[in-house]
């Protein structure tokens, strides 16, 4: 079990840091987040900007799911780093699963399957994935 921040614990089942996504053929990444606590705070950002955050999903809830790219405007570069950031200000545990899907939403590979826990509201973690898209 890994650690981060002041009291953070991280359990890695899968962690791959680079992926090729054939966006032209309809491939995409699927982000699934399970959050425990009062108010999850998270976002997906690339080197240029933030693409989405918790406020885009309405009131706080336990399960979140989002595809990337939602449309062509979400891809700024063919070689970019996408970072999923998590804050433990008012949350205690997150589980992040990132998969590469084909155009029919079938799972081609699992890139990230990780648990993050912390009792320190000052803790945060940033999970990076380098994406080579075509």
């Amino acid at each position: 079990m890994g650690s981060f921040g002041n009291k953070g614990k991280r359990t890695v089942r899968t962690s791959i840091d680079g992926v090729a996504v054939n966006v032209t053929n309809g491939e995409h990444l699927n982000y699934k987040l399970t959050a425990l606590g009062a108010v999850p705070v998270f976002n997906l950002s690339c080197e240029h900007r933030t693409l989405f955050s918790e406020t885009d999903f309405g009131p706080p809830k336990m399960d979140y799911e989002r595809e990337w790219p939602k449309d062509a405007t979400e891809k700024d570069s063919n070689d970019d780093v996408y970072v999923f950031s998590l804050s433990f200000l008012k949350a205690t545990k997150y589980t992040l699963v990132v998969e590469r899907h084909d155009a029919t939403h079938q799972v081609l590979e699992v890139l990230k399957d990780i648990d993050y826990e912390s009792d320190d509201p000052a803790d945060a973690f940033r999970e990076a994935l380098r994406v080579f898209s075509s």
Partner: protein
Amino acid sequence: MRTKSVRCIALLLSLICFSGSLLAQSNSLSTPPDDFNEWLNRRVDEITKARINQRNNTNQSETSSVSSNTTSLVDKSSASDLVGVAVNLAGLSTESSEMKASSMSATVSAYAFKAAAAGRNPLDPGFYNANRDWRRVSFTLGFDYPAGKVGDINERAVTFGIKFLPYDKRDASVDQQCVVVDSTTGQRTTSGCVRLVSGALKESGVGFAKITRLVEDFLLHELATSNRIDPSLLTNPLQFTRDYLGTNFPKKLLPLLTEADVKRVDDIISDHIDPFVKFSDTTRSAIEQIRKKPQASFEFLTTQRKENRPDEYVAKFIADLGVAPRLNFTLNAAFAYQDNKLMKDNRGGMVAAALQFQLTPETKLAGRMPWLFDVSYQGSAMTNMTPMHIGQAKVTIPLWEGFELPLSVSLANRTELIKEKDVRGHFGITFDVARLAQAFKGKYLGGHP
């Protein structure tokens, strides 16, 4: 009448923090990283802390005063906590019919029971936010034995309590407002605490993406050109990330790095550290302000003992008000009743008020604690006892990181034995082992993974 005199008590050692805080301080660096992301996150955290340390010791800028060892803002109490105590109390513990524990207690909110009854995960954010009122009531159950009487059922004291918070602005489901001070203009604005942290998290996410690219490109170039890895990977960065990063990093790439490589990575991070410092400042300021939001509670506690041993009943009111960012006011009022069974009962009340001023803006997170000035009063009156009034003024002076000098003057209208006024002065040295360890580690160990 005894003339007033000041007594000095030398070298009181207090506030020694062990275990939890010390282990928390060693969280990041004592275990190897599981993958590349964990390694990079830790390096960013260490450099962020170092930058904050450096800034606070030179510029005296105003930052949060919250310790890094804070507990969650989220109520994580579980119904099973109280059930566990009740099971032990009834001697139904599966371990043994003997009562092995000398004392045990648990405090659980009514929310935990609500969640258990509803079959819902109490930390489901939707359920948590929809049932805030259930967290206004909490129950305490416990027992203990006098020293040397552990296991003697006749000596066991059972404590039961109930607490009600009619006014609680600290609950994690409340959208608290935070004051933000612009570091250049000094202008103060108010915004949602979560919103502020979310904004800072976004900026740090973009910053981390930039750092990740720069570090990955540097490592690939440096290792390939020096033939520590296959040079052909220079034209295949995707293969490099899949072969040498992720969970392959600790065993395949980390052993190849020299101190010069790690220093270069740290230089890259340092050049892009600002968003992480801002996130750290914003989060800690939000935590401090949330913890100082006003809270008022009523509490009833009773300790029941068998046979002729006295039972105790206490009803208490507590108000904790963060009056201003550096000013905190606490008021306690209590009524106590002691049922002596064989003798006359005792009853009485107690009132206490305390005002704490934070005189300087140093942060508790890194560097010295701030100067604190406390003024407090406590008065109590019980039947068959002379009323007692105690006033105290205390200054806590931070000497250096991990060492504080508290100086206090107390005035009481009677001592324990003599019905005369008594003035005492105290000074002592306190040191925080966890903070000392952190200071030592930061200065001398370098934080290399």
